[in-house]
């Protein structure tokens, strides 16, 4: 209400006039000085109180009358937003604000928030609104409510995140917000509407709509035009060479400076020129890394439309090779040679960006010391059948505490009914036939017929067809086993057994070239390498993640006797997960851009978190695409209703007309007060005259 007018204030002072007049009128005539009240007795009837009350009612009426007259001339108005009440035909507004990383650039988010406020203010009587933000997921911020002030206050609290927005995920999440008790819904999407946020399937842009509801989608592009933006796309380190990939969108500028920082210190800076494809690679030579994990940050020095993608965080592992014990009866046997060669050849997985290798340390049964097992994450066994019972017991405890064992079969297992360590029963019939085959003239060979390709050990592994297996242990699979690969004969080729917090991977054939041709195939190196990474948990931690990704429990967890496992320190140095809490944590979202430190029992690792590259592409959807999207949701085609950016100005202009003038109501109130005042004052006047006449007669 616009009442802060000087004339109104002056006019309001008139309301004090009746008060003074009544004070003058009531204070003097009824009270008299008297010599002494010693002989006076108060009357039972409180006449003067009643009289005062009557005067008060009259005075109140007169004050209200004057105020009403002043208000009528002040012509107050009230915004319709304050008069929101439920009524038929009202609309449920779903106001969606894009808070993905791309909205943090320039003034996109401010524009979106202002547009959202305009939408809230322009709601009609009976409408309600629900405020939501969309990035990696859809979240409700406020509402549904018809209190505009609440919603407007909530809009101010909204901030951009580092996440990526997928419009398909966003729209599918809207279904639950479209409640059935409202017939009219209007979805307002305030976003930069990036092309890169579109799902692969257009159908995902259409939410599951209530059967009888009328749903409208209004799109509000915060920046209809494309903005020039550069990003650091990737960093790759090999030896002392670091390659930094740059990509530019809608950029007319063809050169940029790239700065490389290792462990917080700037080590080099060089210009790069974009190729016609919009990409460029900056190659830094002679970069010296420290032993262990290094923090590498590549940055574009100049600011652009989106600053958060001008930095790329990357972890380079220069840790020394990790030792792994190989428990064997004969350190000079061929399986030992094959395993050592394969493991010392293979590097870490490609995505780990590390160069660490393994050093196999053969340990004979005589030299085995169970106390040394604490130093290792996993253990190799070349012939599980040769393991003495005492060592098997130590290894069982090691596995139960979270350790891992890779064991292969061997000749010493052939005569056993039950394998040590794993406890698997060997079926004699199958075993006999295999032995017979071995010595017979007709050799029967098997191949790997079925592989659980989703398992990390077999990920991207090719070459199974080259394998030929002549001998394998007839292991009886138990309910706790997970068979990872099957032979064509129906026997398991490789299985995984969970024991306590650890696991055991058993290869049912040997690692020499007598039972199979596995060790002499190139495939063997990859198989052993991925098995090593799996069992040592190296494969678990992906060293490069996108903001909003989750750190899984198995990435956080490690080996520990007390059930506790890991600790996460975010880029701000805040410990997110304490040790004692880790075991109860299922997953942890990585919100910030930078380096996350992960401390587990198996060692320390570093995770570089960057915003999703898709957020860097500021190319907006075309008008045709927007119309198609809106039409698909709304069920009708109408360019005017689809793109509200231009129409919003007109709508804001209409807001002035949405104010409700109150002077009509106040004029009626003033008239009523005037009538009441006249009637009451006449009544009192007559009564007073009658009393005076009575007194005169007396």
């Amino acid at each position, binding site marked *: 209400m616009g009442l802060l007018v000087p004339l109104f204030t002056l006019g309001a002072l008139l309301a004090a006039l009746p008060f003074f007049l009544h004070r003058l009128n009531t204070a003097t005539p009824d009270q008299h000085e008297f010599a002494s009240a010693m002989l006076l007795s108060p009357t039972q009837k409180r*006449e003067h109180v009643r009289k005062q009350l009557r005067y008060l009612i009259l005075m109140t009426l007169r004050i209200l009358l004057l105020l009403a007259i002043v208000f009528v001339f002040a012509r107050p108005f009230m915004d319709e937003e304050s008069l929101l009440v439920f009524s038929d035909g009202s609309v449920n507004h779903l106001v969606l604000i894009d808070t993905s990383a791309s909205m943090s650039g320039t003034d996109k988010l401010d524009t979106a928030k202002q547009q959202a406020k305009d939408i809230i203010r322009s709601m009609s009587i009976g409408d309600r609104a629900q405020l939501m933000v969309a990035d990696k997921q859809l979240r409700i911020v406020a509402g549904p409510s018809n209190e505009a002030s609440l919603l407007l206050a909530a809009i101010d609290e909204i901030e951009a995140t580092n996440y990526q927005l997928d419009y398909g995920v966003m729209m599918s999440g809207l279904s639950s917000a479209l409640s059935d008790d409202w017939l009219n819904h209007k979805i307002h999407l305030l976003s930069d509407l990036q092309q890169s946020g579109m799902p692969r399937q257009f159908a995902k842009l259409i939410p599951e709509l209530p059967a009888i509801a009328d749903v409208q989608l209004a799109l509000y592009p915060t920046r209809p035009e494309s903005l020039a933006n550069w990003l650091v796309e990737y960093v790759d380190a090999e030896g002392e060479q670091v390659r930094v990939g740059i990509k530019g969108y809608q950029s007319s500028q063809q050169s940029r400076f790239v700065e490389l920082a290792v462990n917080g210190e700037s080590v080099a800076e060089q210009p790069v020129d974009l190729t016609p494809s919009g990409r460029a690679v900056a190659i830094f030579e002679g970069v010296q890394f420290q032993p262990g994990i290094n923090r590498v940050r590549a940055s574009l020095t100049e600011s652009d439309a989106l600053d958060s993608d001008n930095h790329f965080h990357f972890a380079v592992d220069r840790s020394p090779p990790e030792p792994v014990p190989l428990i064997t009866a004969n350190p000079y046997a061929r399986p030992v040679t094959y395993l050592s060669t394969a493991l010392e050849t293979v590097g870490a997985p490609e995505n780990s960006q590390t160069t660490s290798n393994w050093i196999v340390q053969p340990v004979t049964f005589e030299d085995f010391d169970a106390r040394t097992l604490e130093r290792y994450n996993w253990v190799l066994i070349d012939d599980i059948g040769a393991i003495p019972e005492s060592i098997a017991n130590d290894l069982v405890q090691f596995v139960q505490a979270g350790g891992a064992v890779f064991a292969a079969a061997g000749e010493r297992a052939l005569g056993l009914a039950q394998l040590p360590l794993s406890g698997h029963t060997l079926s004699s019939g199958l075993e006999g036939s295999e032995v017979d085959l071995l010595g017979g003239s007709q050799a029967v060979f098997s191949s790997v017929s079925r592989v659980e390709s989703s398992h990390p050990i077999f990920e991207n592994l090719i070459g199974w067809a080259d394998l030929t297996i002549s001998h394998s242990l007839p292991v009886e699979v138990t309910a706790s086993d997970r068979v990872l690969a099957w032979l064509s004969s129906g026997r398991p080729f490789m299985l995984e057994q969970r024991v306590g917090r650890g696991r055991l991977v058993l290869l049912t054939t040997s690692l020499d070239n007598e039972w199979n041709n596995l060790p002499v195939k190139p495939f063997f190196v990859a198989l052993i390498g991925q098995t090593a990474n799996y069992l040592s948990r190296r494969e678990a931690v992906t060293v490069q993640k996108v903001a909003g990704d989750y750190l899984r429990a198995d990435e956080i967890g490690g080996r520990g006797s007390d059930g506790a496992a890991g600790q996460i320190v975010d880029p701000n140095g805040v410990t997110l997960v304490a040790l004692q809490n880790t075991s109860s944590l299922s997953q942890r979202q990585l919100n910030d851009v930078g380096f996350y430190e992960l401390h587990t029992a198996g060692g320390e690792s570093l995770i570089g978190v960057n915003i999703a590259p898709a957020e860097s592409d500021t190319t907006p959807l075309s008008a045709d695409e927007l119309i198609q999207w809106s039409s698909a949701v709304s069920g009708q085609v109408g360019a005017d209703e689809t793109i509200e950016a231009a129409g919003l100005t007109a709508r804001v202009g209409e807001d002035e007309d949405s104010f409700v003038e109150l002077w009509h109501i106040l004029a009626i109130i003033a008239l009523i007060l005037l009538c009441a005042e006249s009637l009451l004052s006449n009544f009192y006047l007559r009564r007073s005259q009658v009393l005076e006449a009575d007194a005169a007669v007396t």
Partner: protein
Amino acid sequence: MQRLLDPAVLSGLANLDLIARTVVDGVMIGLHRSPTFGFSQEFAEYKTYTEGDDPRFIDWNVYARSERTVIKRFRGETNSPLMILLDSSASMGFQSEQAVVSKLQYAKYLAASLTYMASKQHDAVGIMVFDEKVRDYRPPSSRQGQLPAILHGLDRVVAERGTVLEEPATQVGALGIKKGMVAVISDFYCDHESLLQSVRPLAFQGQDIMMFQIMDPAEIKPDFKHPGLLKDAETGQVVEVSRDYMQKQYPQKMQAHIASLENAADAIRADHVLMQTNEPLDQGLIGYLRFRSRRT
């Protein structure tokens, strides 16, 4: 001459001296030299001069003849000092529409008249003005300047505060004033028992006490047309009263109050004179003379 004793006429006079003279002269003329109430300069006897006697009355002729200092005494002249106790509490300031002067003003007229009359009789006269405490005190004296001093003091009296009669009565008793007359001028809004207790010692000392109760006619018979609020002039207490009460019950209560005051006065052999402020002052002066004659 009665007209000259009317308070409405007296209020038009300039000062208390003139008022007092007018009142006394009016009263004395009306008395026609009554032997009972004699007031003359006829010689009665000679008396040996003693310290304290007014030297104006030394008969120098006798001194010339006999070298003895004697003073002349006249008929009607007695040794009757008059002590006036004037109530100046706030209730005395009350004046209704029916009266032309306030109770205090009326009391001042009365006090001035009594002083003047006593002076003419060569009686020593003193005054004590009180409310809650004694505000002004002038001991009895028959000196020449006593009359104007008392009148001047009366001029300055204003009505304020409450009433405590015990205070002046106690002080008069304590001062050891010579036996004489004590005129208490007040509206006597007090408890009868406490009044008796405070005044009774004076009676025991041999003082003749006159109680002049000054009342406004509206206090005796209020003219009250509407119910309303009455505010006590002394305490500020506001009491809501009905018209019926003020017209019926209050006059009865007032009469009972006056009657009880008369009874109390009788109990200590005091004289109670009720004077309304719209009535002439002669009644008060006649009362004084009656008392004075009782002592001679």
